[in-house]
């Protein structure tokens, strides 16, 4: 408290100083305190922003997946049982049952599976427009042949006897990849041995999408950054993060007809693509599975330039190491039989990331960041072991992949920032969404892929 003469005089004078406000002041105050608080509206805005973001992301993703053809809707089929107890493949929504001659169960034209031992796989050829039925104890896997003149050749299988799995694949899954027929539809019924009910309807087998895998979305790793609060101008921000990712069982078809199996490598949205041993990637049977698990960490320094309380830009250099394992199980046609393939792979990736981000604080409770994440893969080392099982033999191949890459992979980055206080510490929680474009980590020459990636940044801004 100032004890100077001047301050003392001023305080003495001011202590008794009063002024009467205008007559309308109380009315205004009374109206304001009886109305709902503005803060709630801010909260609503936050939720609205989140919903808008999610909706936009979903709409974009949906558009990306469905712009290849309008036949996607026709794939939403449901497995039913007919009065024979056999599973039945429904008709596509775009055509009525009357349009479809002899597409019901029991019109078997060609199911030459007699004599095939249990637990083995055979192909059952169908005539145009007709279904095919396997007899118990014979077939484990059947495949319908497509005919362009009548593409609705449905395939149905009965139980194949104890110990056998029956896998049905639709004709549409095996058409030539150049055929663009929106009426073609795909569905797969799996009827476990001895259990006469349709068990699984694999989703997403769409016309003109012949490959069984979609690019997978993987979570990014959380980061922690440290930013000096209320400091305008330049400052260095140490940042570090680590995380794990795991993705399992993909049974969808992919848009890229020229690739085999593909999945992303966290966190760089990279891809590994495998081509089946017969070289025909489009022949991979839908229903294949992939399991990946990965670990990655990242550390570096970001340079922040804060222009005002609202605007700042950020760039820097981050080193990133990723390690992941992948296991594939898939099958490809091999003559009249199938090959079952299993592949184990382990990869180590070293990369540099150069982000270029813009931060804008819209409200005291919400900010936004956006920009470009520039990923540069330096090296990628991989080791892969594949086991091929046919009806006659098992073979194991081991191959090492070591490649020097200078792949540039840009990705758009967007993040809402929400401030949080815990005791004396202030944080900025920033869940982010990243959309990668351009070239990717290529093993077998897959084309450029796109990928959504999400994670969270935690920035320590006050202490």
């Amino acid at each position: 408290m100032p004890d100077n003469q001047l301050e003392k005089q001023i305080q003495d004078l001011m202590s008794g100083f009063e002024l009467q406000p205008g007559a309308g002041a109380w009315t205004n105050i009374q109206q304001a305190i009886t109305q709902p608080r503005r803060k709630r509206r801010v909260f609503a805005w936050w939720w609205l922003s989140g919903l808008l973001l999610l909706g936009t992301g979903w709409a974009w993703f949906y558009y990306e997946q469905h712009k290849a053809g309008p036949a996607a809707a026709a794939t939403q089929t449901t497995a039913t049982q007919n009065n024979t107890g056999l599973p039945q493949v429904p008709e596509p929504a775009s055509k009525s049952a009357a349009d479809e001659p002899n597409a019901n169960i029991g019109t078997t034209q060609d199911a030459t599976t007699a004599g095939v031992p249990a637990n083995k796989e055979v192909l059952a050829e169908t005539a145009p427009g007709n279904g095919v039925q396997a007899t118990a104890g014979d077939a484990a896997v059947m495949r319908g042949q497509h005919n362009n003149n009548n593409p609705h050749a449905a395939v149905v299988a009965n139980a194949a006897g104890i110990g056998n799995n029956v896998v049905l694949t639709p004709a549409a899954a095996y058409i030539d990849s150049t055929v663009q027929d929106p009426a073609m539809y795909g569905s797969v019924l799996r009827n476990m041995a001895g259990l006469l009910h349709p068990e699984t309807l694999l989703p997403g087998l769409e016309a003109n999408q012949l490959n069984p895998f979609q690019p997978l979305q993987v979570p990014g790793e959380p980061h922690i950054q440290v930013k000096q609060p209320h400091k305008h101008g330049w400052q260095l921000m140490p940042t570090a993060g680590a995380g794990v990712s795991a993705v399992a069982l993909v049974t969808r078809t992919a848009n890229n007809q020229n690739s085999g199996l593909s999945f992303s490598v966290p966190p760089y949205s990279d891809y590994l693509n495998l081509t089946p041993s017969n070289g025909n990637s489009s022949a991979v049977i839908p229903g294949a599975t992939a399991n990946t698990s990965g670990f990655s960490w990242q550390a570096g320094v970001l340079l922040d330039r804060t222009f005002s309380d609202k605007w700042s830009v950020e760039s820097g250099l981050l080193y990133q190491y990723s390690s992941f394992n992948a296991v594939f199980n898939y099958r490809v046609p091999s003559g009249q039989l199938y090959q079952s393939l299993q592949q184990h792979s382990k990869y180590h990736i070293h990369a540099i990331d150069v982000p270029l981000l813009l931060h804008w604080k819209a409200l005291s409770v919400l900010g936004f960041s956006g920009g470009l994440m520039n990923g540069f893969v330096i090296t990628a080392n991989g080791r892969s072991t594949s086991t091929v099982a046919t009806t006659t033999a098992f073979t194991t191949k081991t191959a090492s992949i070591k490649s020097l890459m200078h792949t540039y992979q840009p990705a758009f980055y967007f993040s809402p920032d929400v401030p949080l206080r815990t005791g004396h510490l202030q944080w900025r929680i920033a869940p982010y969404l990243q959309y990668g474009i351009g070239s990717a980590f290529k093993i077998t020459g897959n084309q450029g892929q796109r990928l959504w990636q999400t994670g969270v940044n935690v920035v320590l801004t006050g202490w």
Partner: protein
Amino acid sequence: MTDNSRLIAACLAGDVAAQEQLYKTFAGQMMAICYRYTKSVTDAQDVLQEGFINVFRCLHQYKGGGELGAWIRRIMVNAALNYLKQTKRYQGDMVLTDDYMHPVSGDDPVINLSAKELADLIRQLPSGYQTIFNLHAVEGYSHVEIAGMMGISESTSRSQYMRARTLLATWITKYDADATKKMNYAG
């Protein structure tokens, strides 16, 4: 239960008459504070309304440990600072520069002004000076506290205050001399 406690309880219960009574009890003092921090009566009234709205919304947080008037006064000062920060026409003037450099005087004049006249002189100071002067000289905040409240360094607060003080002392002296002159002419 004291009168204030009863009044607060009634206000929290939504009693409009009690709320109005609370407002009327402190409106005069608080308007004077708002007047000192702003450049116009309209602005002062805006700050007063915002401050009282905060008072009623945060009344449940008042623990009764200190004087109610002092608690309301702190809210009013915060409302004034927020208003100055958010109002554009105060922004240019809030920038604390050295444009108003004056030699620091060691002599403290005797103030022969009314409270209103003194408040008017304080309001003549540039906004940055005005705010720091009010916070330190009248409200009694330390320079460390002012630095935290205004997002400036302690040394800036200290130096700006000294310049504001010198400027005000000069004006008070001049104002007093002018008044004496007028009296002499009149006599």
